[in-house]
């Protein structure tokens, strides 16, 4: 069995977000890039599945649509334990564009992992689009996954609870928190090995984005916090009713 894990390259979660002067482009100066947190958990789960006793997982491939600067992030995924990386050499214009690029080769895999969103553009889209383009099953909000023969047993969150499902391969699992406990951190040996693992670069196919970010905007600054003494805590509830009018 072959597993593909989609890898988003996103700014570190503590990054101070800046834009150019006319607010039409993200300013990547000084930004530290990381593997999208959900993708890191997905890769961790893929590794666990491969290492499990009696596992049928032969290989784990990671893939990203991005320019050469994203190779550091792909190398980190190789250092965590993926066997091979694929980079489609293009700017990730929008989710439909990215999914179209991935659809060229993702059909060769039995199980594809995508994160529920990317922490930069918060899109929630690539995984589901890719599944539809490939015509394969998908389950979203996956917080647990086990392979049992040709069936996959999946835990997913629903609004108002959770479910355990059986679904057949090939499958695209769109994962969230819980899929793995902690993301794996590359060990020294993994980092050394990653240098010699294959990283294939593909040229993009022709595709049109369907959405385009025109301008960015920073949130309104908040007014100062109104402080109330610990012993007057009851007063705050009255303020919420009479002043803020939210009770």
């Amino acid at each position, binding site marked *: 069995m072959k597993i593909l894990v989609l890898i988003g390259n996103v700014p570190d979660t503590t990054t101070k977000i800046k834009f150019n002067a006319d607010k039409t482009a993200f300013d990547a100066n000084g930004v530290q890039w990381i593997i999208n947190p959900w993708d890191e958990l997905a890769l961790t789960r893929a590794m666990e599945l491969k290492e499990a006793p009696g596992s049928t997982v032969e290989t784990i491939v990671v893939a990203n649509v991005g320019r050469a600067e994203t190779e550091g992030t792909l190398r980190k995924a190789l250092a965590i334990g993926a066997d091979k990386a694929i980079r489609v050499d293009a700017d990730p214009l929008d989710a439909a564009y990215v*999914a179209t690029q991935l659809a060229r080769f993702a059909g060769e895999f039995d199980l594809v992992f995508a994160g529920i969103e990317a922490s930069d553009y*918060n899109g929630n889209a690539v995984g589901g*689009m890719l599944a539809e383009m490939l015509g394969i099953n998908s389950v979203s*909000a996956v917080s647990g996954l086990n392979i049992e023969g040709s069936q996959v047993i999946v835990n997913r969150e629903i609004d108002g609870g959770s479910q355990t499902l059986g679904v057949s391969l090939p499958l695209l699992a769109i994962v969230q928190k819980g899929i793995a406990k902690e993301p794996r951190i590359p060990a020294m040996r993994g980092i050394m090995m990653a240098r010699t693992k294959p990283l294939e670069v593909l040229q993009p196919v022709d595709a*049109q984005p369907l959405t*385009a970010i025109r301008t960015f*905007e920073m949130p309104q600054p908040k007014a100062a916090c109104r402080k109330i003494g610990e012993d007057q805590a*009851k007063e705050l*509830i009255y303020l919420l009713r009479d002043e803020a009018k939210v*009770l």
Partner: protein
Amino acid sequence: MSVLVYIENWDGKFKKISFELASYASSIAASLNVPAVALSLGKVDNSELSKLSVYGISRILNNPDERFNALDNQAIAKAVAQAAQTTGATCVVLAHNNLGKAIAPRLAVKLKAGLVSAVNGLPVSTEPFVVKKMLFTGKAFGHIEMLSAVKVLTLSSNSFGLAEKQVTASVEFFDPEMVDADFHIQIKQTNKVTGKVLLSDADIVVSGGRGMKAAENWAPLEELAALLGAGTSCSRPVSDEGWRPHSEHVGQTGKIIAPNLYFAFGISGAIQHLGGVSSSKVIVAVNKDPDAPIFEAADYGIVGDVAKVLPQFIEAVKEIKS
């Protein structure tokens, strides 16, 4: 032409989020000068369906097929796509919740439509079609132009609110072409959380962090939530510790919520936490550290011990409710 909105039900009932979506769809429909059509799948009574007309929906399509209750995103996307085609929808609206997030991308591919998820409120303009959404988990917003003929949107809950606009509506049986093979998932077990307000549907959310110290200290927090009809949530370390379920985790790697009122008890206010709650209309923070970053995001704050403040809050809420 139309604006189509997919309305999910919970055991045959709608929630506030359903009516917010209906309000939102009919408002977009009005600006495009086309009717607002709703689609409901699974068994829902006519009396419940017709409530959508209070929020401007003039045509209500429904199909009571129980198989839709399995929340199979492939099957639902197929049915919604057919409804979009038969009603000539140029814009399809879904909830930004677990089901909506799963359906929207599949639907967008079927309709060759652009997708923007988690939009905040009405389009900035319809010609060109530009919507606003939160980016970088709350650290910025973007104005996004949708270039395709058909647009798919998921709406962040509580970003638009309810807008009553009673219209006369027809309730129609809708019969999408479905075959057994369209239903792919087999449900082995369902655990429903009963008697609790859904986080995505909550006007008020009461949240606890590591400063709550232990799982057993949640009793007063839950009491306060119950008195306020509020949902409960927590910071990431709290769910990592297993003090609270993962479904309550809010923030960058958890849920993003925007209630009218958010209480943060013993939460430091790390940037990754704030990403999930900063769109809340009013934030109340209780933290014993006067320098905790949560106070920079809060509208009201108490520098103090949660154990001393919670009982006073409970008492005051009991007073105003009586």
